């Protein structure tokens, strides 16, 4: 994908999207706003899991850091929500840096467990520090715009999603991105070719956490109510499912996964929290039978896509 093509597609898509508030009612607009939130979450988690192979379970937690930092600043100190979102993003990136450094010597399952622990600690702290966070009741926070309108928040989230995708694109399709993928494939081989594995892993963790913090901060102010649901493991697994089902390690995969799963979940909302279970099962099936997700399936079906992996001897089927 060349730069020009990427920006053309991005701005064309954003242009089409920006027409949506003209035709959609409040409910559908809400679904779109939530989808854009998940797009940011899944895409930035993909940078970590899909491009450097660090399967973190703390991504929703970093969104929570962004949301609560901004929310508490607004409620306790009257900080402007926009400034709060920026500070929340910075806080998430700093904590991401810290957790990233902590997890440096860990790979695979150990990193996953450590981030799982971090996520759980955060949940317990938020639930119990009732005076500051209002626990499970949720923290009521001011909005980002004077006059509440779904359309305004839709444009804000659209803008933030575009920023997220541009940052990720710049990173993934740069020389750094090559190093990311080299590290994901084989750390030892990457190091032997001069790649600073430590720097790559920490950079990915920091950027990815910052983007989660940004998404969480904006989302909290949109909802006007920040609850421990935002940094919950439910949310984490939802983001994971979206990425895996859409196509982990592909740029568009998480975007497609976010929209399709969020929209689908609106249809099966009647079954309550079971939809997370359903998504988990779908993600498992996809991981087993189509490891490259929907994007991988699309690529192998489309004539212009990358050729099917191996030159499999013809079996008569096409």
């Amino acid at each position, binding site marked *: 994908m060349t730069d020009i093509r990427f920006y053309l597609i991005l701005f064309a898509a954003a242009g089409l999207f920006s027409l949506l508030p003209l035709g959609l009612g409040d409910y559908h607009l809400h679904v779109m706003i939530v989808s854009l939130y998940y797009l940011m979450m899944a895409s930035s988690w993909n940078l970590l899991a899909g491009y450097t192979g660090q399967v973190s379970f703390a991504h929703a937690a970093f969104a929570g850091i962004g949301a609560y930092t901004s929310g508490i600043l607004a409620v306790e100190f009257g900080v402007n929500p926009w400034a709060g979102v920026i500070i929340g993003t910075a806080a998430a990136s700093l904590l991401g840096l810290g957790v990233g450094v902590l997890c440096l010597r860990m790979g695979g399952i150990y990193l996953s467990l450590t981030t799982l622990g971090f996520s759980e600690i955060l949940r317990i702290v938020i639930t119990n520090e009732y005076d500051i966070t209002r626990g499970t009741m949720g923290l009521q926070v001011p909005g980002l715009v004077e006059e509440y309108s779904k359309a305004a928040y839709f444009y804000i989230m659209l803008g933030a999603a575009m920023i997220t995708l541009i940052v990720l694109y710049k990173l993934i399709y740069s*020389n750094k991105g*090559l190093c990311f993928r080299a590290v994901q*494939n084989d750390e030892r081989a*990457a190091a*032997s070719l001069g790649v600073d594995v430590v720097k790559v892993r920490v950079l990915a963790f920091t950027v990815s956490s910052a983007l989660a913090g940004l998404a969480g901060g904006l989302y909290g102010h949109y909802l006007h109510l920040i609850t421990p649901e935002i940094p919950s493991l439910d949310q984490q697994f939802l983001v994971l499912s979206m990425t895996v089902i859409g196509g982990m390690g592909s740029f568009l995969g998480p975007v497609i996964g976010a929209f399709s799963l969020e929209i689908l979940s609106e249809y099966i909302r009647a079954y309550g929290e079971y939809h997370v279970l359903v998504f988990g099962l779908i993600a498992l099936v996809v991981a087993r039978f189509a490891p490259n997700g929907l994007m991988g399936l699309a690529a192998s079906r489309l004539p212009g896509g990358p050729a099917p992996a191996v030159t499999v001897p013809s079996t008569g089927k096409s």
Partner: protein
Amino acid sequence: MALLEGLRLSKRFGGVTALSEVSFTVEEGTIVGLIGPNGAGKTTLFNLVAGALKPDSGRVVFRGEDITGLSPNIVCRHGIARTFQVTRPFGTMTCLENVAVGVINSPRSESDGNWRATALHYLETVGVEDLAFTEARHLNVVQKKKLEIARALATRPKILMLDEVLGGLNSQEIVQAVDFIRRLRDELHLTVFWIEHVMGAIMKAAEKVIVLDQGQHLMEGTPEQVVADSRVIHAYLGE
């Protein structure tokens, strides 16, 4: 002049002594073979030089500089490149991208931001340019070994450390490969430090051969001296 020098290098894994006080020198511009029976410590020695393992004692000196215990990526930047005994390609990346990783991280890179042409050049050097846009996991063993050499060359090393690159080749191909490595050395002004089980190849290519046995430096000399040495024959064939 000694380009690479190991001074009394030792490495233990738990109770097992993999290397014990091994010293060696690799002279600039030569091809030096490293041989020995299985478990002699050859790959461990490579790992100590390349920074993949830290020695328990001893020093590694490269171009007069102490590089003992530096991380692999720093060692690479000093001008030491290696291949792995069991190849380690970046499977989900194309061959071109595999080589590009070496190009973009080399402080001596000539590519000026355009790594494509440079990476392709190194694929051509080893003769797998037609696989440039194939993901590395689809390569066969021989192609993977060639890719690893291209990747290592792309870092523009002063010394190339090859760990059993001839496995899987037939005798005809081995002759070609030996010619190829010699040509590489001459054209790129390389020094080659080469672990190989295929004795015929090492005997033909190397100016000096170092023999390890059970973690100890057994002897070193010209290929003729080595094959005639009773200790070497004994190490390989037993009583």
